[in-house]
Structures are given as structure tokens and as C-alpha cells.
């Protein structure tokens, strides 16, 4: 089981309670599709992803970005058993969506960059450490049911 310090718990709750999902969700997914273009392979039916401007203006990308970000809510609410919380989602990503689990890490990196941009100097090294630890647990849990 993952051990969380009081600081880490408080940091994660604070970041997500203050997060503007409508802003961050689209920003994260569109950034991922631009910075790691091979991730576009999963969004063949999203229409125009031909360049950065198209990606950032694409409404399907924006909607899906919000969906994915809200997917983290369950982990935020169940920090003491993220592994069990994401068991079904892990199976889904493996068996139905066929997503390479390395993509979870890429998205997590983009989320860190976007949150850093929104928080500015409040995104201290300790806050970054807590945030990345949380995301690492999420990423690990989502990859756990792959076989």
C-alpha cells in the first residue's frame, strides 16, 4: 500500500479542488497530442488533428480531455487504494481501448507541465514531488491489469 504524508494528501486535495477542469482538461490532452504526436493513433475519429492549431481548437479533443481529467477524481477521493479503484479502468484500457500504457506516463508529464503553468511559483519542488508521486501511482494502477 502506498504511504502518504499529511503534506502529500493535503497537496493533492488542494490542487484538484482548485483545478479548472474545463481549462486544464483540454489543455492537457491537446498538449499531449502535439508534443507526442504518435498518441494521435487513438483518436482517428476525432477529425482534424493535422497541426497544433487544429488540435487545440478541436472540440472532441477538448471534451475528451475533460473526461480523462475527471477520471482522476476517483483516485483523489480514494488515495489509500488507487490500485483497486482503477482495476476496471485498467482492464478497459488494455482489453477494449488497447492503449499502450506508456501513454499514461506521457499524459502525466503533460499534466504536470500544465499544472505548473497554472500554479506558477506555488508549484514548489515539494508540491511537484507530491503531485508526481500521485500520478506515478495512478499510472502504475492503470497499467496493472495488462497482460
Amino acid at each position: 500500500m502506498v504511504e502518504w504524508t499529511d503534506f502529500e494528501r493535503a497537496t493533492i486535495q488542494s490542487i484538484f479542488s482548485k483545478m479548472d477542469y474545463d481549462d486544464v482538461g483540454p489543455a492537457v490532452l491537446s498538449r499531449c497530442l502535439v508534443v507526442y504526436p504518435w498518441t494521435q493513433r487513438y483518436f482517428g475519429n476525432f477529425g482534424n488533428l493535422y497541426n497544433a492549431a487544429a488540435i487545440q481548437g478541436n472540440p472532441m479533443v477538448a471534451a475528451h480531455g475533460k473526461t480523462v481529467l475527471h477520471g482522476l477524481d476517483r483516485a483523489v477521493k480514494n488515495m489509500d487504494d488507487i490500485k483497486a479503484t482503477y482495476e476496471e479502468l485498467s482492464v478497459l484500457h488494455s482489453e477494449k481501448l488497447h492503449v499502450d500504457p506508456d501513454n499514461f506516463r506521457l499524459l502525466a508529464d503533460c499534466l504536470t507541465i500544465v499544472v505548473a503553468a497554472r500554479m506558477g511559483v506555488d508549484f514548489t519542488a515539494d508540491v511537484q514531488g507530491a503531485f508526481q508521486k500521485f500520478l506515478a501511482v495512478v499510472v502504475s494502477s492503470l497499467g496493472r491489469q495488462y497482460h
Partner: protein
Amino acid sequence: IPFSSFIHPLNRLCGTAEPLAKMSLSAKEKVIVKDFFAKVSSRSDEVGAEALARLIVVYPQTKSYFAHWKDLSPNGAPVRKHGITIMGGLYEAVSKIDDLAGGLLTLSELHAFVLRVDPVNFKILSHCIMVVLSMLFAEEFTPQIHVAVDKFLALVALALSEKYR
């Protein structure tokens, strides 16, 4: 999917695989990188110091390379000074952007034969640098600039790993 996009694992292997085709920066991306680094140059010391401080805090295993420092606190003098040194190296790389392997030969030999930093650390330091850039230059660090800088840092890491084996 174009063949070149399968080269991305090279970023993660950092010099441990011989590519058939090498990822490289387009002319446009070189301009993006040079312009962006020029724009942030007034705070480059701050970026370097902060990035190294973060490396040590967020990835504590990296402290293994600095055991010879008396003071390993993230805001202490040795960390700040070394962060500035590293950033200076990056600016040198920007000036040699058309031939990173040739231009960074001395630094490459230093990292290969003297420092022997495991190449995985280039990747995580690159990430920390980009987090700090995103923090301090939120509006400027757009996805388009992010991808160019990410590629540039990966190529610098490759050049630094040139002589490892």
C-alpha cells in the same frame, strides 16, 4: 504513421540504441528553440538553479551524484551554482544547434569518462527544466514550443551520451 515517429523510444533509452534514422530538428524548430532560449535568457540562472533543485527533491536518487557536496539543500549555494553551470551548457548547445554532437564533444567526453552520469538522468533533468520553464513562462511555453524544446533537450542528451560506449 511516418517511420520517424517510431524513433521516440530513443529519448527514453538516451544513447543505448543505435537509430536507423535520427530524430532531428527542422529549420523551423531550430528557430523556435533559439528564439525561446533568447527570450528566457534574462532568467536563465533562475531556471537552471530551480531545475536542479527540483531534480534533487523530486528524484532523490540523483543526489548520489553530489555526495561530495557538503550542502545538498535545494536552495543552498552548491545546488544553485551547479544549476547555473548546467544552464550555461544548454545555452552553449543552443549556439551549436546545427551540430550538437560535434559542438558538445568536450562535454560529451566529460560525461562519458569523468562524470559517468547514467543517461536516464538526462531525461528527468530535461523534464524538470521544462516544468520550470512552464512555471516561469506559462504563456510562452505553448505546446508548439514545448515539443521543439523537448526534442532539443533529447538531442542534447543524445550528444552528451555519444561517447559512453
